[in-house]
């Protein structure tokens, strides 16, 4: 009997502790959202070279550079930024619960997502493309894929699109793009498909330099926006202003060249840099 009571007590105290922890984090999110004091929390990818990559305590990539610029325009200097990892599946939740103030994590603007969050921007128009080995000239676009082995990430939009549109393709799905790149270099698969920005980031990595190339025939349009809490028009407008200023000042082009340029990636000039959508 005594043991059971002690057990119940322990369980109750653990429960209380976890509740307390929840309360704390909610409060932090609230004060951060106010703009003054506290730190400005930005959600990015931690594992996407060229876009959002965490190496030790350094954060690099195009998303990171844009985020820094926007944050500065909003009045938060670099030391005030707290980077938060925003995996694809958690982005809506992070914004809804106020755990981040904004998200720049290859976050495509879609109508379904607009039901949960609001978007500022877009700040970049990417497209689904193919990454192949540099010496492979047999794949020139999505139509020459029949019979080839293609790799993408489980459940991703890119993987679904390939399955629907090109049923003659054999598709290997892995948990992350890094595994696809490893399989591609080892000649296990013939191509890797996802947004061209992500592909360019991998092709630009030191260990793959010269071994991989982006085909350059995008077959979809992904409009990367800045995810913010639903209905925050004021913040949306401020971010749009900051993005416009970034493009006008040439900083935007600099960020593209620095992060995606090394792989010989060409930005689609007809679409980029994009004009921000009206805020709602």
């Amino acid at each position, binding site marked *: 009997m005594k043991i059971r009571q002690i057990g119940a007590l322990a369980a109750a105290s653990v429960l209380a502790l976890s509740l307390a922890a929840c309360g704390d984090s909610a409060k932090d999110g609230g004060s951060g959202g106010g703009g003054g004091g506290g730190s400005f929390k930005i959600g990015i990818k931690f594992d996407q070279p060229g876009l959002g990559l965490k190496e030790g305590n350094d954060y690099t990539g195009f998303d990171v550079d844009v985020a820094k610029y926007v944050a500065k325009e909003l009045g938060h200097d670099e030391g005030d930024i707290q980077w938060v990892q925003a995996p694809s599946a*958690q982005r809506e939740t992070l914004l809804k619960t106020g755990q981040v103030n904004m998200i720049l994590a290859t976050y495509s603007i879609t109508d379904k997502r607009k039901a*949960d969050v609001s978007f500022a921007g877009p700040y970049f128009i990417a497209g689904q493309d193919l990454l192949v080995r540099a010496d492979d000239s047999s794949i020139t676009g999505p139509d020459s894929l029949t019979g080839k082995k293609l790799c993408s990430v489980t*459940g*991703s939009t890119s993987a*679904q699109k390939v399955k629907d549109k090109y049923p003659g393709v054999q*598709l*290997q799905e*892995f948990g992350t793009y890094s595994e696809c790149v*490893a399989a591609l270099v080892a000649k296990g698969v013939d191509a890797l498909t996802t947004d061209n920005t992500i592909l360019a980031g991998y092709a630009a990595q030191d260990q793959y330099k010269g071994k991989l190339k982006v085909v350059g025939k995008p077959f979809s349009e992904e409009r990367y926006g800045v995810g913010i809490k639903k209905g925050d028009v004021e913040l949306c407008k401020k971010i749009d202003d900051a993005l416009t200023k970034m493009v006008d000042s040439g900083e935007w082009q600099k960020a593209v060249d620095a992060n995606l340029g090394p792989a010989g990636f060409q930005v689609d000039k007809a679409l980029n840099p994009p004009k921000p959508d009206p805020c709602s």
Partner: protein
Amino acid sequence: MGDILSTYGPDILRAFWWTIKLSFFGGLGALVLGTIAAVMRVSPVAVMRFIGTSYVNIFRNTPLTLLMVMSVLGITYILGVSLSQDITQNAIRWAIVVIAVYHGAFVCEAIRSGVNTVPAGQAEAARSVGLTFGQTMREVILPQAFRGSIAPLGSVLIALIKNTTVAAVIVSAEAASLMQKIIENEGGSFAIFAIFALGFVILTLPLGVGFTSLSRRLAVKR
């Protein structure tokens, strides 16, 4: 919740059917491998014991994700050993093999604990009436060991069913990968989590109850 069910209902059923298939074949393989390993671990031959022990120590609690990725990425794409020409089939077969090999180590330990419930005197008696080691295991020890290890085997099976979700890192047929797909399309929500959590509860809860009552009914009364 309703709109997700109406859009993805058939997909969800198909995905859970794949989860069941992975669990069934993986569980079958694990039972066979685990039994062999358990027999090796209690055999009188030192080399066999060493092999059995090494197998358990290597595979028990090696990260399952690592084994999954290693199988398809390492063995198929880098070393070139395929289990099927078709990419999807290959990944599914590897997933079954990895689930079997990984859980075989746990099955081995469960059965070995069952062997320990059989009094040593029975093995000695069996040997003294002239049964070989194989006959002793088959006729005397293992039947009692299995009955004694039903409860831990049930726990291993339940863990195995839940661990099939790890296969999502190499295949896209079973429940966890469909969940990723739905979250990608619809945005993360509690409803999606609830649907899949409920699916696994439906799969595992009756098993837990069933194994508990089986273990009570079949236990060797001593």
